[in-house]
């Protein structure tokens, strides 16, 4: 599940070199959209996924157009601060009573939990759904980036924005599409989060967002397999810490790992080293 959020970070960073702090909150909005479509309208599961992904993508495209596009040629820090601002705004705006409200909401389970035992390992159908959804999204992403025209545009923009523009790539459309795609994955992640940990509130995006970003950096930012690898390492190390050390140290261990990896390989495990040109 970290993988889904991490993918969004890594794609956006790969293309516009911006740490999109609002990404975790897009994830939260996806979870809330899913919550309302299940709770109020009792929609079937595929429709819930579609609504969450579509809503999140729409939100991200709006954010990109309103807040990031005017700043694309400004100093990088201006966009970063704006990203933090957007993140705070989404958190507190949705926490207003008139919007989602500041409380914790119990996410209704859309189906019964079934446990299966396969070769001595107990697997619930929730874990199964998470695995299938993650793999499916990953496959779709791999297909879009490497097999379609938009994907080629994305790779071109990530390589060199100006040259891509000169070669006839519609840079703005490609960047919007990237934001939308990343957010759609976050939306799916939001639904999965709601199903796995049946409690959501408007600040739930902060920590998963931060950790997903760490996972993206861990694996080598800008690299899709790297994001997945980083997310797997993060998830494993957190589970291990909770199991063998103490859960209070859980949030810290992921970052100890991150710093260790950065010192050993400053661009992440699967990242490409860049040589400084003078």
């Amino acid at each position: 599940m970290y993988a889904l959020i991490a993918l969004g970070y890594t794609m956006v960073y790969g293309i516009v070199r911006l740490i999109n702090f609002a990404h975790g909150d897009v994830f939260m909005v996806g979870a809330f959209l899913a919550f309302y479509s299940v709770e109020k309208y009792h929609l079937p599961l595929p429709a819930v996924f579609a609504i969450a992904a579509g809503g999140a993508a729409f939100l991200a495209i709006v954010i990109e157009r309103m807040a990031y596009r005017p700043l694309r040629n400004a100093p990088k820090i201006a966009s970063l601060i704006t990203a933090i601002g957007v993140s705070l705004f989404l958190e507190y705006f949705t926490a207003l009573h008139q919007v989602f409200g500041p409380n914790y909401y119990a996410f209704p389970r859309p189906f019964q939990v079934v446990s299966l035992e396969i070769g001595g390992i107990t697997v619930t159908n929730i874990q199964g759904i998470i695995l299938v959804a993650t793999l499916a999204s990953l496959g779709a992403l791999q297909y879009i980036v490497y097999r379609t025209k938009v994907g080629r545009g994305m790779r071109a923009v990530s390589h060199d924005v100006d040259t891509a523009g000169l070669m006839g790539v519609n840079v703005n459309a490609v960047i919007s599409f990237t934001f939308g795609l990343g957010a759609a994955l976050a939306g799916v992640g939001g639904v999965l989060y709601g199903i796995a940990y049946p409690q959501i509130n408007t600040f739930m995006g902060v920590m998963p967002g931060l950790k997903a970003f760490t996972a993206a950096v861990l694996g080598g930012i800008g690299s899709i397999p790297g994001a997945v690898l980083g997310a797997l390492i993060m998830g494993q190390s957190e589970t291990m810490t909770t199991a063998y050390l103490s859960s209070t140290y859980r949030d810290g261990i992921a970052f100890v790992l991150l710093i260790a990896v950065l010192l050993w390989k400053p661009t992440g495990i699967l990242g490409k080293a860049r040589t400084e040109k003078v």
Partner: protein
Amino acid sequence: MPFMKNLAKAILPFAVLSGLLQFLSARDILNPYWVQIFQLACVVAISALGLNLIYGFTGLFSLGHAAFYGVGAYTAALLTKLYVGAYGDEAVFATGAVFLGSLLAGGFAAALLACIVGLPTLRLTSDYLGIATLGFGVIMKVLFDNADSFLPQLGGARGMTGIARLTGIPWAVAGLVAAILVIRNLVHSTYGRALVAIREDEVAAASIGIDTFRYKVIGFTTGCAFAGVAGGLYAHLYTFLHPSTFDFLKSFDVLMIVVLGGLGNLTGTLVASFAWVFLLEGMRVALPPEYIEFRWVLIPLLLIVTMLVRPRGLFGVREFPFLRSKVYR
């Protein structure tokens, strides 16, 4: 003695201001709540000046400033707790001396830690340094949360109590003046020029003989020392420390102040710190209670709009006269 004369000239207006505020609050003309907010603004300004030295002048992207602020706060609070107790009178000379010592110790502890953290991480560049310092901030928060398991006085996740209220207007103002003077003189010295050169182009700076790594460590350590001193003042202003005060979101607050004011601009940092604190608290008073949550909706909006309109910060490169370099005056 031109040095003493200059020093006196620089300090005098602040001394008058501090005396005036002290007088007004003693006569109950100023609301004690606002006096406290004023002191908080001074503390925030000290910490923000430190970050401006790190990010604005040296160009090191640090997202762990609140962690150093926290280290200073806990160190200073622990020392006064041990040597003064929960109730101290700031007018007593011995107490004042211990307090001063604790503040400096807090700054020193933060600087020491910054040096230890900086030696390996400052080899990273731009965003990766940001992530590493952010990670460090989260690790420190986890340590603060678990601090009671190795020193019960620190309180851990329940917060640290029993700190004497020692910070007063003179302390806050004096701290701020010291920070302004030191940083102003530093950035206009050979050292400061080297730091700015590194910010502009690290390779070029190295090629003209600047030991870039050494200067980066110096800039980072000095900036963090100010965060530590600010933390110590904060601890003795509110007499209660909680780990959530020092999490990474607070690092963002300071970063926002520095960027709003303009990177490498001392005037901007000062104005933005005071505006930030007073705006936050002013809206608490100005808004009707049922709309109090709107505070955090309006502030990010204001932030986004400011960044869209003035991407280089409110003040750009303009400075107050007393903060300018003598060479260009």
